[in-house]
């Protein structure tokens, strides 16, 4: 995937904001939906390979 270019204004950091290593986890993602990817096309085959060999994206790129 290409890098996504966003054009919006980020809020500035409030002066009283602080977090360990400047990162604050707040909540989990909502529960996902289970769906089937169509087993078709080059990108699916890459997915299947990663999944069957239990590889991550970066391991896959090596």
């Amino acid at each position: 995937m290409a890098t996504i270019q966003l054009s919006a204004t980020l809020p500035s950091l409030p002066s009283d904001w602080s977090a360990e290593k400047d990162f604050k986890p707040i909540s989990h993602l909502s529960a996902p939906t289970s769906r089937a990817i169509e087993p078709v096309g080059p990108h699916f085959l890459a997915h299947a390979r990663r999944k069957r060999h239990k590889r991550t994206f970066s391991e896959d790129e090596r």
Partner: protein
Amino acid sequence: MSADTGSPEPTSQESSRVAIGLSFGNSNSSIAYTTANEGKAEVIANEEGDRQIPSILSYVAGEEFQGTQAKAQIARNPRNTIAFFRDFLGKGFKDVDPSPCHASAHPVELDGGKSVGFEVQEHASEDEEGSSEPAKSTLSVSEVSTRHLRRLKQSASDYLGKSVNAAVITVPYDFTDEQKAALSKSAKEAGIEVLQFIPEPVSALLGHDAKVQQSGEQPQQHDRIILVADLGGTRSDVSVVASRGGMYTTLSTAHDYELGGSTLDKVLVEYAAKEFLKKNKTAKDPRGNERSLAKLTLEAESVRKALSLGASASFSIESLSDGIDFSLNVNRTRFELLGSKLFQSFTRLIESAVQKADLDILDVDTILLAGGASHTPKIAANVQSHFPSTTTIISPSTSSTAVNPSELTARGAAIQASLIQEFEHQDIEDSTEAVVTVTPHLSHAIGLVTGKEGSEEFAVIVEPDTPVPVRRTAQIPVAAGGDVLLRLAEGVREIKVSKAEKPGTNGTAGSDDDSDEDGSDDEPEEVRSKVLKPGKIIAEAGLKGVKKGGKVEVQVNVAADLGVTVVAREVGGKGGVRGVVEGTGAQQNGSAA
């Protein structure tokens, strides 16, 4: 993301495969291959020069005809001509709709009703005079399919100069396992190893995307909701697909087994028959005679096809009824008026699929019209006026670069065939198992909260319905520089309805949008728009000391357990922030689609 297909070890059997893409419809079939050097999909013309080969077999004086030649026999020799049989494969007699076959060989019960066949006079008379009728043969749908597939295989082999022995075959989304098993068996008997069955709409999408990528119109796979409408001869099938990083997930499907090009032919047949009777007051109704009706129907189809390109076309039939010749000019506007109800049915079917996917028409980025009937300009025009202007309609009449919709499914199948033909059979099976394909998909978009407090907005980084694991990278300019707050959140899509003032001149706006049903002109028009609002906040990160005019890059990595890793840094800067939000494990909502 790398998209190469890996390098499985080809065994001797696998490397001797010659594979094609094959689309086998009730009305037409198509065969396609990919060119060796460029990997481009091309549809193969048979010896008669046809790329859409009618799925019809006819027996005349002991000889078998296929395709266009067989189709012509519907008027001359209907009971020995077998047409519209694909959907009968793997079904019991009671479960099939025989109506498309009313003008050709009628389906009969086989194996005590467990399957379907056709009774035809396959062989010529034994004796010279032809006085004694030879026995009729009963051909099962499987046998008919085998014969048809064998001829397609032969056409492809002749063209390619080597013997084709494998194929990716497209089937409707709702083809059952029994139907696939029956088709697989028929193919095997014809000497074709089925590498994989793929759904027709998905194949059409693959064919389209491959063409777009090869022509460089769209260099990268971009995420979008795409609706594929496969409008054929006897049926129409719609799929709503989330395309995410080049992977396709079907969100919903809708089917109409009585809507297609043939339905539109009937409208023209009615019209032509009435005009004929107007001119020939004492002649017999051509609809009352099987042969006359068949001639009228075949001619109606060519008129309708001609009207996809030209503004008018003519019926011209010798000796239609009572020996009277018939000719009639029809213009496109007339046809569109006659068919207006049916044209609306296509739009309604398409819209119903959007609703089934729990989406709004504003969520649909692209509509890909596939199948022969998609050549019809009015179908595309109706869909275009029904959907918002942000939806791109891909069809011959709305986009100059559209691939011929009659070729899309076969091309997609050829591409899939070229991707997997070196794989071992077991490898293909393992990759298409549910353990590989069934995957958690995000229920909400993930992105950043932007804008001022009180009027926050949401900028999407990962679209909803994206399968995990997923990784996306986004950049966002920081004009003022300084310390910025990155608030990663889930997005909530809302449809905003606002009233817009009508343009000054009342009533002359002249929109010929026939989907606009509320005739009340004095009410302000509703303007619907899609807005994304931030929902649940997932994490916050502070990035300090960004240069004036700098750019921030955020990488979001969602693991299979829904754990989120965020890496944020200034583009070209040092350091940055990295943080993790723990996953929730495997609990999931029930499956859709």
